[in-house]
């Protein structure tokens, strides 16, 4: 009973925030709506007895990624989006049709297929079991994902530099007395 109430509350909040995210003209309002979506989703994870995922959802998405998005919006002073002449207007009925088909499919599946949800013990979502799983059974995917993140990090740093890294290293080793790279002087 209480669980159903909270599910409807947070699911409704998530959907409402998602609609607001798309409908808002002001980019900062959209960002705030997205934070709302993440927080509601994390509450839903919590109700599905996955506390670790819920906490990580808040820390990574709401706490880290969205802070950067808000930061960029604030720094660039992005103004509210203006309504433009719709160039792809013929796509609107197509979108409605596709949405109708999707909803029809969902209703059909819900009616046709009856699944007994598997009984999952509440131990699965705990930090210990996730940690053990990550470092034993799923070690390889875990490591590959971290290397992917490392590559993204290195790529971002390479793109952010004005001078190519190899050239900068060569110049530094050639002229060790100058401790200020040329790129910073130019700025």
């Amino acid at each position, binding site marked *: 009973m209480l669980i159903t109430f909270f599910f409807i509350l947070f699911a409704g909040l998530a959907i409402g925030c998602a609609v607001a995210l798309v409908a808002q003209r*002001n980019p*900062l*309002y959209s960002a*705030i709506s997205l*934070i709302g979506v993440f*927080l509601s989703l994390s509450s839903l994870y919590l109700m599905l007895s996955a*506390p*670790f995922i*819920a*906490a*990580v959802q*808040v*820390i990574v998405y*709401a*706490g*880290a990624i969205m*802070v950067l998005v*808000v*930061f960029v919006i*604030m*720094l660039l002073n992005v103004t509210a989006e203006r309504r433009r002449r719709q160039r792809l207007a013929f796509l609107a009925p197509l979108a409605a049709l596709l949405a109708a088909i999707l909803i029809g499919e969902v209703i059909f599946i819900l009616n046709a297929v009856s699944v007994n949800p598997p009984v999952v013990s509440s131990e699965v979502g*705990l*930090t210990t079991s996730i940690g053990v799983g990550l470092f034993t059974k799923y070690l390889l995917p875990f490591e590959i994902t971290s290397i992917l993140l490392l590559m993204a990090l290195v790529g971002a740093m390479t793109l952010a530099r004005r001078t190519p890294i190899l050239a900068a290293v060569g110049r530094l080793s050639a002229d060790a007395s100058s401790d200020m790279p040329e790129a910073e002087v130019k700025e």
Partner: protein
Amino acid sequence: MNLDNPVIHTVLVFVGITIAFLAIMLLVAFTVLAERRVLGFIQGRLGPNRVGYGGILQPFADFIKTMMKEDLVPDQSTRFVFFLAPTVAIITAIMTIIVYPFGPVVNLPFLGSTPLRIAEFDVALLYVLGITSVGVYGIALAGWSSNNKYSLMGGLRSSAQLISYEIALGLALVGVVLMSGTLNIYKIVQQQSGWFGLNWNIFYQPVGFIVYLIAAIAETNRVPFDLPEAETELVAGFHTEYSSIKFLLFFNAEYLNMITVSMLATSLFLGGWNGPGVSVFPLLGLVYFTAKILFFIFLYIWLRGTLPRFRFDQLMNFGWKFLMPLALLNIFLTATVEAYWSDIRGLFR
């Protein structure tokens, strides 16, 4: 009384939240007073001592005065965000108090043996970090929505500072987590009850404690890291345009953050409610817990009376190039010692 009954449990949790809320709000009020009196003492003056005995009613007088002020909204501000920002700041500041255990299991009249805590769950530490990281929005949005360049500068500085020092803060806590093998703050506190209640984590994690303390002071925007509201440069930083109750919310949020950060330091490093004699008189745990928090609050005020402010580039360099590598080194050492502890003990046998 049966504590496992869900209705009774829920009622008790609400009662606990109410008591903790009131106690901490009172603590905030008297921290403000203590700050002014102790700063006065440090600077060789008296401080407020006229309202009530020794100025004890001064925070309430200030509260009423600030409430009576006109509630101003800047002309060109983004109204909704302007209202949202102080709310976010105060809610995130107060939400973390539920995870800290205030004392051990005590015998209360009518209730029988009751643990003095509000909630205990598996990811308590991650919950604290998550809520803290959401707290950045309060300050950043306040700075942006005020439509004032000083506010915006303050908000941006503060967001950058919080994001940078959050990393060092989180990494400093990893050492304790590695040692205790759990993220549950109640269990971490329980594990420190050896040695007549003096088996505190600070003796195993001195580096982690120092890194945490510095990062925590930066997280709460206090001297010497109070650049977001450096009054000589930025008027008052992100809350320049806020008046009346909205200013009070920010003001309270800052002091609440000080207290919750002290609570986390107490629980993880200083043994929480543990101390000599707690096993005999469990209520003594409450006294120890409060005393440790008061020590941290005094430390905050002491630092404010002593240290000058950092420059912004010094702040960033210090956070990224000194604190973060130090915390990483601490994790590396802790993990190594944890993994090879039996071998290391064998060497000295």
